[in-house]
């Protein structure tokens, strides 16, 4: 069903509006990181670490892989992106703003009273946001519902879900992993932001999830392992996922929490702490 290409949707759905090259993606990724720092510093709270580790994957999707129309967020044929690790929402907001779902100037309203940019995503408030998230472990189930609807309606869109590695400790993630394979959802791809840290430390010490690749394989998934900060690998993995039939794909992306800001990298302190204005200044300088 999913390898069928519809004549009517050929023009509209088979290209990404932005189609950035790898150097352009790299340039964009620095800009997005600057947004993340500025937003969280301005808000005075938020989650820089997991936003910085995830942002390259999200950028690759919106600026190269996905078929979507920022001026028509409800377009029925759009590819869907679900940010299951909802605390990484500054990364998503930065990408949505840069792709013109809403003005870039709005980013600094993050977490403020009456802002459309809530601390964790709200699907009814923010253009382009598919799911209200923030309670970890729920996004894959939600994505399965969307992917099943695509099969029922004979639509070609893809569903992408970004999970945290700590989030893989949630039981619901594995309920969902079982069922996505059971329903043979080859129109669904998970990316795991494998930054090896969670809220209070290294995943290995808090609740080890290894061997991760073998677990997903045992659950019936096609698995790919990549460096989640190298765009050539990220793009190749998403392209490979599209070719896999009969089962869902998981991309285990090795990443660095706090990536791009020296004093945040692998520093769990910045999981859920905003940089001071002084720290933000230093970070922005590094990201120029």
């Amino acid at each position: 069903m999913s390898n069928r290409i519809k004549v009517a949707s050929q023009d509209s759905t088979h290209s990404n509006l932005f189609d950035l090259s790898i150097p352009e993606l790299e340039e964009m990724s620095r800009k997005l990181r600057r947004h993340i720092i500025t937003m969280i510093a301005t808000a005075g709270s938020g989650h820089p670490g997991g936003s910085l580790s995830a942002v390259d994957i999200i950028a690759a999707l919106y600026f190269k892989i996905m078929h979507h129309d920022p001026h028509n967020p409800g377009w029925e044929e759009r590819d869907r992106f679900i940010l299951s690790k909802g605390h990484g929402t500054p990364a998503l907001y930065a990408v949505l703003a840069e792709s013109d779902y809403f003005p870039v100037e709005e980013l600094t309203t993050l977490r403020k009273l009456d802002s459309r940019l809530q601390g964790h995503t709200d699907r009814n408030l923010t253009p382009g946001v598919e799911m209200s998230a923030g309670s970890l472990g729920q996004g894959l189930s939600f994505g399965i519902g969307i992917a099943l609807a695509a099969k029922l309606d004979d639509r070609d869109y893809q569903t992408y879900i970004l999970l945290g590695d700590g989030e893989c400790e949630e039981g619901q993630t594995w309920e969902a992993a079982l069922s996505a394979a059971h329903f043979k959802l080859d129109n669904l791809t998970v990316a795991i932001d494998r930054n090896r840290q969670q809220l209070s430390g290294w995943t290995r010490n808090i609740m080890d999830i290894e061997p991760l690749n073998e677990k997903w394989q045992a659950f019936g998934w096609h698995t790919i392992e990549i460096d989640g900060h190298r765009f050539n690998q990220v793009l190749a993995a998403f392209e490979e996922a599209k070719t896999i039939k009969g089962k869902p794909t998981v991309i285990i992306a090795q990443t660095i929490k706090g990536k791009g800001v020296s004093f945040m990298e692998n520093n769990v302190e910045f999981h859920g702490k905003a940089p001071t204005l002084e720290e933000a200044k230093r970070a922005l300088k590094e990201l120029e």
Partner: protein
Amino acid sequence: MTVEASTREAYGRTLIELGRQNKDIVVLDADLSLSTMTHLFAQEFPERFFDCGLEEQNMIGIAAGLAASGKIVFASSFAVFASCRCFDQLRLCVSQPKLNVKIVATHGGITVGEDGTSHHAIEDLSLYCSLPSFTVIVPADAVETTKAVKAAAATYGPFYIRLSRPRTPLIYHEDHHFIVGKSITLRRGKDVTIIALGIMVAKALQAAQKLATQGIDSRVIDMHTLNPLDEEAIIKAASQTGAIVVAEEHLAHGGLGSRVAQIVAKEKPVPMAFVNLKDQYALSGKPEELLRRSGLTTEGIEGAVKQVVQKK
């Protein structure tokens, strides 16, 4: 003699009817379809039925994702699992975004019977009423079940409908006029009002008949919708009859009694009495035995009425 019918069978049959009318109806279950009767839908529309296995949390997320993609989703399990097991999922994936998901749960209350505490759903109404945007309905019989399920399909937004395991007395005829949020006055009366839902409605009617022979004229209201509550009918009952008894197969806290009392306290304070489950879990037993042990009986309602009428 009272005629009895199964509310869950009515649900299963109604799903088929809805499925024939609308291809966007999708049904989910969690390995209980033979009991919840969603297997009837599954037989006719296998491609639109998904058994999520023993994964209630996952089922709610999937339901929400389907609804976000334009489907009208019915998801079923036993009431205890469809509320307690997946509350966070209901909260964030369905209630907060106000998605078009209908949870129809069977085996509500203690009339599940022999399976015992783990299977008795006696907190579900409280939990669902605490979720903003959920419409919460407990039909009084099989006819009302059919009407409620059709109304849920036709009305955008989250619904919870609680049904029973045993067959229950038929109260309504096919021409029964059902409106979500609008209670039904089944018996006029001037001395006291009995407000009930689900299986307690039939018992309230019986109690009212007996009370009439003792000179107490009871109004009986089927408050099938807990949320949104028919405040107008409650205020009228308080003003016109001056005393209210609430009867429900649920714990005292957070169910119909609490909700009615809130309106009465605010708008028209009158003496009230409550027929419900006290602060404890029921055990194994036959449904009728458990109801008797807990005082959820015609006699229990009669006693509460006599008590409250004296306080007028």
